[in-house]
């Protein structure tokens, strides 16, 4: 995989180094809180690894209930990840997006629903199965 890390040195100036400001230094006992200075958790940073390749989609349907994805959930889709067997993916079937589990074993590829009432989607002869992206997270919002 190609990496964006440059192959030449990048100069770092003083201004590029930022450290949390902890207040004035005093003699005596240090503040016990100082060692634990932390930034508040940022959900975006936690959930999105490849910002340029990440898209959100809204789910319509109940074929993925057993995987914990319900109608009206929003899913985070990362297109930079290489899809492998067992990933929950967004695939393109007949020009439309569908969210399913990727089954990829012994040269066979199909899409499986997380709901026994839905049949597997098996690509027809000569038809390629296009995986659009890999679902990394589902967001469900409850009534408040």
């Amino acid at each position: 995989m190609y990496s964006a890390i440059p192959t030449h040195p990048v100069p770092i100036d003083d201004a590029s180094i930022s450290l949390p400001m902890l207040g004035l230094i005093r003699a005596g006992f240090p503040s016990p809180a100082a060692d634990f200075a932390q930034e508040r958790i940022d959900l975006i940073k936690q959930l999105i690894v490849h910002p340029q390749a990440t898209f959100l989609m809204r789910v319509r349907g109940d074929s993925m209930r057993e995987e914990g994805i319900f109608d009206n959930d929003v899913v985070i889709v990362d297109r930079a990840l290489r899809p492998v067997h067992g990933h929950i993916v967004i695939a393109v079937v007949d020009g439309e997006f569908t969210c399913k589990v990727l089954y990829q074993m012994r040269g066979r590829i199909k899409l499986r629903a997380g709901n026994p009432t839905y049949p597997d989607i098996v690509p027809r002869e000569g038809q390629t199965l296009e995986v659009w992206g890999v679902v990394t997270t589902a967001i469900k919002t409850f009534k408040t």
Partner: protein
Amino acid sequence: MLALLDGNNFYVSSETVFRPALAGLPVVVLSNNDGCVISRSDAARALGIKMGAPWFKVSHLADSDGLVALSANFPLYGDISDRMMSLAAGLGPAQEIYSIDECFVSLDGIPGDLVDRARRVRARILKWIGIPCCVGIGPTKTLAKLANHIAKNAERKPGSYPAHLAQVCHLGAMPQAELLDLMASTAVGEVWGIGRRIEAQLQEANIRTARDLATADVPTIRQRWGVVLERTVRELQGVACLQLDEQPAPKKEIACTRSFGHPVTTLPELLEAITEFATRAAVKLRDQQSLANQVMVFAHTSPFRSGPRFSRSCVTPLSRPTADTRRLVAAGVAGMRKIYESGYLLSKAGVMLLDLQDDKIEQGALALEPESKDQTVLMGTLDEVNRRYGRGTVTVGSAGTSNKPRGWEMKQARRTPAYTTDWNDLAITRA
């Protein structure tokens, strides 16, 4: 060495990302008010639809050939552009974003196989975002542009150029004879900066191909056409005359972007930069006698540095086409306020003026207050005040007069949802 990377059929390709069913179909994107064609899929091109064709002249193809027409969705294009530019920046140490779908990247100091590197960046943009690109590489901007033209046509029209030059074409590493052969297959009008009028004059003087121009007598060129064309000839000969951030010809978008000398973290500092960029872009806009309909702003952290990453953009539609610096600055500042978040070391930001039109075809649909053409004196005063009383003194105040989008003024009957910029417009996946 320089690379020019651009997205193929950029607006149509951006639409296809979220509507995969459009792949392979004849699709066009229409300008503001659904007036004329501003982007075509290859299949639409094959139907003979020309760039700029008025919609009413080609709309019959919807019934006869299944032509799909979409209203321009600038919030979507702005976001996709921002993603693409941020990946393209990985090609080399410096980037000039030239328009919404094109950028020059300096390859200075990059060791190894440049073609291979360009192919990998291209593959990444295709996989990560879904936009097919072409990359042209050459020792000058004009040659990088020519290389891009060859890369695109070798792919689009097999037989026009050798097939191995499709998608990525490097003119800086081939024997002179081969380069001249490629130039001989390229009409002179395809050379960067050669407009219709000059093309006709060159044809008359029997300069028909890029090769004819590259081998023309330089003093004659200068005497008859001036230094601008002379510069183009020298650039074709491999002598760099245009640095990053210099262009020869009027453009369909105007960009003013810059990497910061040191990372920017605060909003006032960022707004000051945006004000300056918008001001400069406005001057360029007036210079080429155009009006803008949309203002895009963006800000990034460095792709070369670890730490929390930030990459956002925002397109603000203007209530009416304008070249007024104040309106453009206000729209840019309003957009940046929307996307800014503290806690990031921002390394780059920019302003892009989109959806440009000739200032002579002003649409006086609604008689709003009259607009004066040139506010440079006012802006100069503003800069002076800021210099005297401290940064951001007046900038932030001007931000208050934000341009609220007024959808009702624009006809956008065929617009797709704002898939990436509106929580209520997310693409739907079946499950």
